[in-house]
């Protein structure tokens, strides 16, 4: 059977949960979802029941914002009990930390951050990127169970199933090792804006903006008008104009929106590795030789500070 681990926030599954449903359905019909967390997670489990035949809710407030160790133990316990052959997680930060621990704990294999996963006979085979996303590898797991972390956005969100599934509640016993780490205060950076990985449109600004004020006025301004996520290059983050969590690239986030604006971004390979799965890419840069143009569908050579106001006006003027 295929087990999917559900991330949730504010009493609802995250978008990635429904992408995992799609990935799981491609691997088999016997799909179960596991939801971790106290009472707040109950509606999440109920929501998932519309998509998969069976949902396990590990009902324990100790699993609200759990450490990686607790989460690993809870998932391992459920996967073991259900005899899962494949466990799917979303390859966000949390999923990428838990998946390796879980795979080792289960004595299985990890296929990490995959863009696609399929069965090849009894084997599990996946496609993933490597070398700063410049190469694509087809990889096969050599031992079961197979833990797979799936790249956000790689699969479409699934439609509900024909028949609703069941929800079962259960508990898990933790050990002292699970409590060694003590997660503390969380600071959310969402600020009411759409999460970068989930945005359909991302507006990214680079050093070509000149200064932090121009970035705020032009890049954030355009993002607000489009309901888009705001992203930055490493140079911008290093310069202190923007926070780390907006950084896209090798050392930051990896995004794949339908539309990506690279504004004043030169296009170093480290940056490209975080955005080259985007649908349509628009680049504006003063340097006509900037590598970003090679990675773009539409390129405008010019000063981003002159082009952007005109572009905002033009976008606003579309019917």
């Amino acid at each position, binding site marked *: 059977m295929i087990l999917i681990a559900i991330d949730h926030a504010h009493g609802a599954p995250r978008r990635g949960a429904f992408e995992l449903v799609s990935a799981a359905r491609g691997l088999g019909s016997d799909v179960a979802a596991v939801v971790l967390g106290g009472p707040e997670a109950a509606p999440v489990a109920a929501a998932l029941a519309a998509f998969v035949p069976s949902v396990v809710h590990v009902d324990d407030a100790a699993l609200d914002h759990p450490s990686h160790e607790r989460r*690993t133990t809870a998932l391992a316990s459920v996967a073991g009990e259900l005899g899962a052959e494949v466990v799917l997680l979303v390859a966000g930060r949390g999923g990428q930390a838990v998946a390796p*621990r879980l795979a080792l704990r289960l004595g299985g294999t*990890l296929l990490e951050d995959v863009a696609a996963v399929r069965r090849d006979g009894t084997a599990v085979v996946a496609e993933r990127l490597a070398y700063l996303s410049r190469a694509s590898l087809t990889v096969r797991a050599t031992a079961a169970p197979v833990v797979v972390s799936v790249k956000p956005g790689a699969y479409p969100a699934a439609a509900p199933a024909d028949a609703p599934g069941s929800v079962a509640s259960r508990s898990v016993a933790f050990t002292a090792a699970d409590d060694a*780490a*003590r997660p503390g205060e969380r600071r959310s950076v969402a600020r009411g804006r759409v999460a970068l990985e989930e945005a359909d449109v991302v507006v990214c600004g680079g050093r070509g903006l000149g200064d932090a004020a121009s970035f705020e006025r032009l890049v954030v301004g355009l993002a607000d008008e489009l309901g888009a996520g705001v992203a930055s290059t490493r140079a911008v983050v290093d310069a202190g104009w923007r926070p780390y969590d907006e950084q896209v690239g090798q050392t930051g986030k990896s995004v794949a929106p339908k*539309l990506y604006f690279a504004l004043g971004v030169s296009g170093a390979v480290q940056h490209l590795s975080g955005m080259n799965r985007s649908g349509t890419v628009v680049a504006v840069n003063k340097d006509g030789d900037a590598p970003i143009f090679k990675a773009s569908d539409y390129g405008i050579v010019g000063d981003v500070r002159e082009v952007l106001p005109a572009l905002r006006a033009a976008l606003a003027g579309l019917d």
Partner: protein
Amino acid sequence: MIIATYVKHVPDAEARLAADGGRIAVDDHAYALDGMDEYGVEAAVRLKEAGLADEVVALAIGPARSEAALRTALALGADRAVLLETDDDLDPLAQAGPLAEATRACGAELLLVGGKQADWDSAALGPAVAEALGWPVCDWTTELRLEGREVAAVHDVDDGSEAWSASLPVVVTTQQGLNEPRYPTLPNIMKAKRKPLERRPLTATARVVTLAAALPSRARRGVRLEGDAATVASELARRLRDEAKVL
């Protein structure tokens, strides 16, 4: 207290890649110490400079050329180095056991690992070796303090940051923002040649097999729009709507 810091010798960002049969071929001269690991070496050396650690040991797994990454770590301030030498492409889970063993063998209680490796694009090694050691892991760390045996950190989580604390021993994965790594100065590079570097043969079995490798290039339209700002802007808006159909 002894700190172990893992380093990997990876192709640099400008390296030319070639898909050669089922694997990716890289020019031997295009390798360097993984930038993500530099934050870990820097953190370890700073803890030692602050009198909070006695020794910094750099650990690497890989082919003989990985010695260059270890020499860089030694030039940056590590005291000694150990190379677990193998020519096999080992996935992070296959590396976790040997790395855990080497960490125990040098008596380290803090193991630093780069948050993401630039060859496999993998963030798995830190958590995997933590599992093999039975230690907690703080991933994507941006702040790290050590008071006695207490580790206080801040790290990135899916939608923000989180404070994190634990007692030694722990695994910490490092990233940009944790510190500003120093350069290896030329005198220190020369001195690093005289620091101890031990090579041990490693036999391990990969758990993940690469069936095929390719260098995909996504076809882009590559349209250049030219003219004054107002003209190109309205042309772009029109094309985004009518041609790319993304608005």
